[in-house]
């Protein structure tokens, strides 16, 4: 039943979208509705087969394991600025990032009643403690804390993480009541590899012709994947690639920028529009990076869990919350900037996000060392006033356009 459409329509629903704008519009409806309509639809369609829904906290969760078990893994990105932090405020203090507070709020306000479980990877101190708070407040639901090794070069880590995935596999099997076969896992890996390839293709096309692929729009296309089965998202993305090229937009005189900091808490869509209005063309970003976390496909043969473990340890995009091992975050970022001929670097850190705030200091130094202009500001998922960001972005653009 994994071909099942989440929007409760036939599998080729997305092919029926005739225009780019219609496609983007539908994605927005599906992706940013905190009532999770597509998830509820999927749940009711999967009811007879015992399908389960599990919410995944950023950044990285091996969703293949859920997909292989007749589960719908849903990427949770907090309240998307649409809900008030009300009940959660008495559980997590105000100096903690919005996403942790609003994700808990989603749970406490019954937005997640279609969900059967929650998984938190060990990305930071907040996420780690959130797992305990979650377990305390939702005692009877499935809560899994996933330990992501922080010493990727140690062979002990590979073995331990393989075991960690095995434990997850066992617990998920208990949740659904059916064992998870290697064959099913390999199929899921193939589907996710395809999904990552399509997302990368989307990014590549934007990098080639930014005016053609407005960031907030391709963001919405990618975001739909958070609440859809991957097969369906793949169909959607294929349609998008077909429709996108047909678009004709005037070429704009803009500065090519790389955006960093949004690997976990997501900015409001308006922020992306404001940046592009101000004359930035975002050609590289780490938005919703979890969906395209691996730089090469996960091995589709052999032991699937070992393959997932190996990919996590050695083929990931470098973020502030995974250990680079022998690699270097600075070089990684500067290389990507060169490849995409980036003219300016924007560090947009979520307020109170310590990992992002620590890294931006070191990365900024590295960028300035090669005379790559840097703009830094903070955002919150619930921000609604963009005047200050707009002005900073415009000044940044002016400093590059007028004086070079």
């Amino acid at each position: 039943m994994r071909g099942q459409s989440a929007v409760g329509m036939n599998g080729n629903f997305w092919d029926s979208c005739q225009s780019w704008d219609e496609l983007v519009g539908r994605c927005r409806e599906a992706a940013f509705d905190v009532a999770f309509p597509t998830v509820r639809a999927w749940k009711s369609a999967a009811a007879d087969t015992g399908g389960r829904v599990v919410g995944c906290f950023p950044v990285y969760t091996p969703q293949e394991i859920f997909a292989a078990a007749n589960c719908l893994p849903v990427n949770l990105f907090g309240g998307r600025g649409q809900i008030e932090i009300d009940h959660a405020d008495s559980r997590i203090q105000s100096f903690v990032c919005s996403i942790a507070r609003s994700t808990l709020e989603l749970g406490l306000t019954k937005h997640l009643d279609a969900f059967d479980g929650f998984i938190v990877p060990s990305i930071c101190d907040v996420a780690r403690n959130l797992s305990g708070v979650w377990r305390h407040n939702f005692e009877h639901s499935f809560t899994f804390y996933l330990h992501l090794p922080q010493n990727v070069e140690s062979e002990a880590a590979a073995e331990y993480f393989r075991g960690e995935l095995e434990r997850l596999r066992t617990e998920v099997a208990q949740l659904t009541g059916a064992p998870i076969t290697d064959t099913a896992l390999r199929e899921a890996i193939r589907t996710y590899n395809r999904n990552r390839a399509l997302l990368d293709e989307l990014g590549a096309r934007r990098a080639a012709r930014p005016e053609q692929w407005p960031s907030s729009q391709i963001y919405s296309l990618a975001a739909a994947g958070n609440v859809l089965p991957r097969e369906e998202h793949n169909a959607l993305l294929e349609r998008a690639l077909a429709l996108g090229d047909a678009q004709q937009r005037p070429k704009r005189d803009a500065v090519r920028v790389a955006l960093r900091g949004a690997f976990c808490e997501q900015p409001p869509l308006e922020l992306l529009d404001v940046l592009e209005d101000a004359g930035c063309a975002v050609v590289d970003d780490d938005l919703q990076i979890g969906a395209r976390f691996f730089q090469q496909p996960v091995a589709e043969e052999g032991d699937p869990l070992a393959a997932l473990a190996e990919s996590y340890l050695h083929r990931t995009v470098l973020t502030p919350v995974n250990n680079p091992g022998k690699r270097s975050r600075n070089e990684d970022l500067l290389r990507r900037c060169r490849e995409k001929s980036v003219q300016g670097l924007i560090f947009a850190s979520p307020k109170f996000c310590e990992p992002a705030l620590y890294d931006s200091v070191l990365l900024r130094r590295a960028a300035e060392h090669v005379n790559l202009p840097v703009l830094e500001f903070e955002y919150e998922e619930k921000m609604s006033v963009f005047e200050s960001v707009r002005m900073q972005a415009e000044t940044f653009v002016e400093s590059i356009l007028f004086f070079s």
Partner: protein
Amino acid sequence: MSFIAEPRTVRYVAGVDVGTRTTRALLLNEEGEECGRISRETGARPEIAAEQTLQELCIHCGLPREHIVYIASTGYGRYRVPFRQIQITEMTCHAVGALRLFPETRTVLDVGAMNSRALRVADTGRVIAFRMNDRCASGAGRFLERVATSLEIQLDQVGELSLRSQDPQPISSICAVLAESEVINHVTAGKPVEDILRGAHNSIAERVIALVRQVGALPEITLTGGVTRNQGLVAAIEERLGCRVNVSPDSEYAGALGAAILARQRWQRLENSTPASRN
């Protein structure tokens, strides 16, 4: 080249700075020399303020409107100037303006009512790095207004008074509002007003200088914005920086001046090339 110069109309460029409180306009001729400046209250409708300011400027300089060939707007209302050719942010303009006022400027510190900004600028006027402090309590002007009220003294006196301080009192609160109660606590603890005021000025200086350091302050440092008129704050800033800062009575016009300079630059480019469009 001919011996008889052909009669031709002189052409001008203008910069219009639409601030929250005041709208200022400044006129440059083709050679980039200033030909006039004017200011008026912004009021509720920036469009109207901008329009009237420009008209007054024309009258003031006695020239027909059509002789102004390029107009750059800046300030918070920059998008609401209907007749602009381009809008530029106040940060870019302040940098260019400050550089015109003090050619050796490498750092600009713009302290406004609520926001403070530090800019590191190249000799070209290009903004190399900048930091804005638009977090709570960053507002220098507003903070002083609050302190003045709670001390029951005139705003224009606070700077003067603070300079007489022998023993400045610390004010630590991050929130401008809560800082008031600290001020009141000092008062009731019987501390002299000038010491409390100096403390308030110091705490503002601390915050804005943090911005300056973050952009990597290089001399010379030029101070712009409304609070430049407050010697107390200027003194507090200089004391903490351990160096003099440039302050000019014209600094209030730094934004309009910068806009005008960039307008002229842009117009000249347009004259000999067709640049790409920016919205």
